[in-house]
């Protein structure tokens, strides 16, 4: 009985010691505990190419940083979740990431609706959320707040001011006919384009506006109208993806690209045109904007990035991959400057930071936390260098002129 008692007591003590020992390594492990970065994106479905590409861009940055010792001695870790393009799902995953997985930062999304839902939550939860693709300017303008950042272009330079500046520089056409889907983004896109273009070329006119219903894939009567309108150029407002492909097929069949200038902002997207082969319809000679024309970027770090992305996932990077790569490095720099993972101090640091990237210096603007990413433009052609059509004669728009000014944003926020 006595022996039993001693045995049990010894076992109990051993257990307590083991349990106690358990706590000590934790203190040491806290130093190696990873800094967690959540990533909510379209990881399945039609847009999954973007989600996977962004995640990959982040992983490449993380691999480089961890190989060099991590951030403050801690490794970085990215946790990707699928938003399924639904604000409810995206929000639910974000909450799970923050509350259960305890991520320190959140990044994402492609859908502006999902982005705005997560942004509203991040504002309440006082956690940093950085956008890597979603383009709606409203998110950072009217709905912007302290904890929201965008390291990415937005709809203003991509769909509106960028094409306006590019057209004014390239052809300065006076008579333009526009076509866009009859919904908010379509109408906004034209409004923003007109805002800038009519300022740059005051005697220019939008001679007509065509608004096919959203989802139209048969543009034939619109195209013959454009062909016979007497315009110098046609402008497509926010027509991308399948609708743009259908339009281009039909316009090509009508010889529209030979007849007049084409301003087709989304034609620069590798994501849409990457599978088109020589001989197939494409926006020949069109003026297009592009968010990451890696074929024209000389910096060897960019070339290495493209190669690494291709090796990992078997396709070429979207601009989102580049954005997520910059986001990871921006967070690294901010955390190291602050010396700790302190959200408030990191916000203060990020909002005046100038990122040193392989596309040049990119400042983050304090008034709206928008990174002043460059926008490229050029003429769509097939060249022997690449198997798909892409922009050539590439020029770049830097600085704030392709974006809404802080003054404009202040006015929008007052409304």
């Amino acid at each position: 009985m006595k022996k039993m008692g001693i045995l049990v007591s010894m076992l109990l003590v051993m257990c307590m010691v083991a349990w106690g020992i358990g706590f000590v390594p934790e203190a040491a492990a806290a130093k190696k505990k990873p800094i967690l970065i959540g990533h909510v994106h379209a990881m399945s479905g039609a847009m999954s190419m973007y989600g996977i590409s962004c995640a990959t861009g982040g992983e490449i940055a993380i691999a480089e940083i961890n190989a060099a010792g991590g951030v403050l001695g801690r490794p970085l870790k990215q946790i990707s979740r699928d938003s399924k393009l639904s604000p409810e799902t995206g929000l639910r995953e974000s909450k799970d990431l923050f509350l259960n997985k305890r991520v320190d930062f959140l990044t994402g999304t492609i859908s502006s609706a999902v982005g705005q839902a997560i942004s509203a939550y991040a504002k309440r939860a006082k956690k940093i959320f950085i956008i890597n693709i979603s383009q709606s300017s409203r998110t950072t303008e009217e709905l912007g707040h302290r904890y929201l950042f965008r390291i990415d272009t937005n709809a203003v330079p991509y769909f509106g001011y960028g094409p306006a500046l590019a057209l004014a520089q390239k052809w300065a056409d006076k008579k333009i006919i526009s076509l866009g889907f009859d919904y908010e983004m379509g109408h906004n896109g034209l409004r923003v384009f007109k805002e800038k273009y009519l300022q740059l070329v005051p005697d220019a006119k939008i001679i007509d506006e065509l608004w096919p219903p959203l989802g139209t894939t048969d543009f034939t009567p619109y195209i013959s109208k454009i062909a016979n309108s007497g315009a110098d150029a046609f402008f497509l407002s926010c027509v991308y993806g399948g609708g743009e492909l259908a339009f281009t097929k039909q316009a090509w069949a009508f010889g529209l690209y030979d007849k007049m200038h084409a301003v087709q902002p989304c034609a620069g997207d590798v994501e849409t045109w990457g599978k088109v082969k020589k001989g197939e319809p494409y926006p020949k000679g069109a003026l297009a904007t592009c968010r990451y024309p890696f074929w024209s970027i000389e910096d060897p770090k960019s070339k290495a990035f493209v190669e690494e992305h291709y090796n990992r996932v078997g396709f070429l990077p979207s601009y989102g991959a580049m954005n997520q790569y910059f986001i990871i490095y921006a967070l690294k720099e901010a955390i190291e400057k602050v010396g700790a993972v302190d959200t408030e101090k990191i916000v203060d640091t990020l909002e005046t930071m100038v990122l040193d990237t392989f596309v040049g210096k990119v400042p983050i603007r304090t008034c709206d936390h928008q990174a002043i990413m460059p926008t490229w433009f050029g003429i769509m052609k097939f060249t022997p260098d690449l198997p798909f059509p892409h922009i050539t004669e590439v020029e770049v728009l830097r600085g704030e002129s392709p974006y809404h000014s802080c003054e404009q944003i202040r006015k929008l926020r007052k409304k």
Partner: protein
Amino acid sequence: MRIEVIAAQALSGLSVGMVLFLIAAGLSIIFGTLKVLNLAHGSIYMVGAFICYTFTSTFAHVIGVFWWTLILAPIATALVGGLIEIFLLRRIYAEEMLYQYILTFGLILVLGEMCKLIWGVGYHTVSVPWPVNGSVPILGISFPVYNLFLIGCGIAVFVGLLFFMHYTGLGSTIRAVTYNREMANALGINVPMVYTGVFMLGCWLAGLAGTLMPPMSVVALGADMEVIIGCFIIVVIGGLGSLPGAFIGAIILGLLTSFGIFIVPRLAVAFGFILMIIILVIRPWGLMGKPE
């Protein structure tokens, strides 16, 4: 307005109209004989388009693959239609119209989700086949040959169907069943088989439209909703159950939309609906339908 411009706009409108005619003809024939308004007819057209994409991409190395697909894809679509008729529609012929609408509406959702599961949510393309690629100058304006081909197909199908209905034994049988089901049954005609056959014919037409459309557009989800409204406008204008009515209705809608876009682009979409409302008010059975 210059004559070339009028011609170009008219031909554009006609080519759009002819694809819609093929779908609307199927819808009209099905209603005429089975007295079923197949709300899912647009979905069957979409299935045909996806089948066309699958054939052309799987057998892309075969010369003339599109022409083989033009023969096979509508047949495959008709077979899908046959299965729907035998296993689903037959059960509700005796029921009220409301059940037909509920069933065919449900089919829209089921077929849509099936397409999503099988083919995904992205868009797919089919190339314009030789020898109807390229363009021809019409009065000095470049016009795609494929659109002229579509107009030709529409006219050929219309003439073929008229001939079939009025000059063949099968056609007479179908017209007999349409005219008086009970009498046809009493005369030994296998009415259920005629019903299945007619439904399959309607689906064959939808499948044909689904095969002809992709070279000039894209194959994607949402194609069903895009066409079904135009089809309803056509059959209301032309008269439900009338084949010539569907043809005239399609021409009218195509031209109205096309010239509408030319003259008043912002209201062009409304013109078809406005005409439909006018017809419903003054002649509800349509231009070539028969009053009940």
